């Protein structure tokens, strides 16, 4: 097999180093007001925004707090706002958000209680996913290619990496703290599509509430920022349609009087 070694996706730009000004949101509990700190970072353009934060932590300020683990968009822990927009900094190359000598603004996610610096409290968010009975192990669609595969079904992780970017981008989550939020509703829809032993009725009744799927105002910001192909907005709409159909059906059946 022939190898293409001059692959453009390699994304390395030789030994070029850029100087980037990081403006980082800072807050420490019980020690002063939130503010922004500026750090100058030497970084290659193909390196990521998270690499830069790690450099700041390693060489300039060991008290900077930020969450990260997998560095490849799989664990969902690194979510912040980069230049105002919700992103996973572990997969955003520097050159995608600025140029040599430019500034990168890093702020914590919105609509979550702030803990310190770039760290927010995900407790409520995770509780809602649990309340949706969301199990992240699903059975996958077989990889398309030939006919053998119909029997070849496997387990895999759900697409949703529970990063919270959608909740931060959602204007309704901003004004209604009780709103379940896009991730939990998308999770409910997944559990209805593929129940994995969970009772879909309880998932439905959980979503069918004032602060559940009916609270959404169709801004679609969640799907704009979701890094993992979940399309939570579409899931919320599908959930509504499903609930609406059932409600209508029940209405007609009640008219018929013959079914309980």
């Amino acid at each position: 097999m022939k190898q293409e070694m001059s692959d453009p996706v390699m994304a390395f730009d030789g030994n070029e180093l850029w100087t980037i000004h990081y403006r980082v949101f800072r807050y420490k509990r019980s020690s002063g007001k939130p503010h922004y700190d500026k750090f100058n970072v030497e970084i290659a353009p193909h390196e990521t925004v998270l690499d830069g934060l790690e450099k700041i932590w390693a060489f300039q300020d060991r008290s900077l707090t930020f969450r990260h683990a997998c560095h490849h968009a799989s664990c969902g822990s690194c979510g912040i706002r980069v230049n105002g927009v919700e992103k996973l900094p572990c997969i955003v190359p520097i050159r995608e958000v600025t140029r040599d000598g430019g500034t990168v603004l890093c702020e914590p996610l919105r609509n979550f209680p702030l803990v310190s610096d770039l760290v927010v409290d995900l407790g409520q968010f995770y509780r809602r996913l649990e309340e949706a009975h969301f199990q992240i192990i699903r059975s996958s669609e077989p990889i398309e290619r030939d006919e053998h595969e119909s029997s070849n079904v496997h387990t895999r992780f759900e697409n949703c990496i529970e990063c919270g970017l959608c909740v931060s981008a959602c204007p309704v989550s901003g004004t209604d703290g009780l709103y379940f939020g896009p991730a939990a509703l998308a999770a409910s829809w997944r559990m209805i599509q593929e129940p994995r032993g969970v009772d879909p009725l309880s998932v439905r009744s959980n979503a069918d509430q004032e602060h559940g799927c009916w609270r959404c105002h169709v801004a679609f910001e969640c799907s704009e920022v979701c890094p993992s192909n979940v399309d939570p907005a579409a899931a919320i709409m599908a959930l509504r349609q499903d609930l609406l159909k059932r409600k209508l059906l029940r209405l007609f059946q009640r008219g018929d009087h013959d079914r309980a």
Partner: protein
Amino acid sequence: MAEKAVQSHHVVVIGAGSTGVAVAHDLALRGFAVTVVERGAIASGTTGRNHCLLHSGARYCMSDPVSAQECAQENDVLRSIMPHAMELNGGLFVALTEEHRAYKSRFQEACQTCGIDAPWLTPEQVLALEPHVHPDNLGAFHVPDGVFDPLRFCLSFLATARRNGADVFPFTRVDELIQRGSAVEGVKVSDLHTNRVRRIEADLVVNAAGPWAGEISAMAGLMLPMDPTPGVMVSMRGRYCQRVINRLGMPSDGDIVVPQRETSILGTTSWSVPRADTIPIPEEHVALLLERGRALIPALAESEPQGIFTVARPLIHEMVKDTRQVSRGFECFDHAAEGVQGLVTIVGGKTSTSRAMAETTADLVCSKLGIQAPCRTRETRLESYRAFYYT
């Protein structure tokens, strides 16, 4: 001296990577009062950035049968205690060339010795299962490899430890060990949420700081020269296989493709660095991984990397290893041997064997504190990882 109840013994665990969290869980389950301190986020060290492979042991069956056997046993245990954080689809050891296929009988025997179930598949069977594997493959062994999510792996252990009374403090860095004479009696930490310093007293401190374990033991004046040995991984956009795809042969660079969620992770390489923080990634390693990955799965050529990352294996400097006469996947030191009471260090190993490492460590802790409490981690199902955040 009257015997103290186990609950009144307080153990501090430094580091919330796979090793530290498993130790915390084991100790909490045995009844100890446990406090975990981690300077960063959970799994922000080596563990979070590893290759996510739940080893079946097959990878090491020819080179290191002891580790292989241990992996095989732990694989069974982890499947049953943490099914909610794993993709369990098996793995293939594929022969691409005659040279690879020459290992066939040796591999088969080695797997048998280590207790790993590994049936041989013909090229047609391989392609039926994994249509994207190289069409000219010469057959493969099927093994019980799996895939885990390292963050959720750690959170599950910690959530369970918490349920059993453990305190867990991320963003809490150990700056000093509290010592009386040479004996360690606790840790002095900085809480990075508040920038305040505080002391945590303990009957015993377990150093599970991975490649940074040397920094901790140095605080007690001990020499524990680490040899941080990083490996590069490239996460490709798109999933091209359901099973872990390995190249048949002795373990070497770029011989695994691990599918996870919507990605395929190529790995890995090995070299040596002076320090384990922010390791620069050599360009040629990435090129090598891409080349070797495409040899296994040609369709990867259509894809592009979405994340390139590296971390260091927490290995002990070879020279020290020899003098200490321990040759296992991991090493557990009682520093009393060097005159420092109250400090135990656990390094090396794998995420896949962290439960076993924890069992050994907790056994040592028990014997040091004169406690008799059996290990129960083999049969205790772990809590949902989410419980860590909301309890």
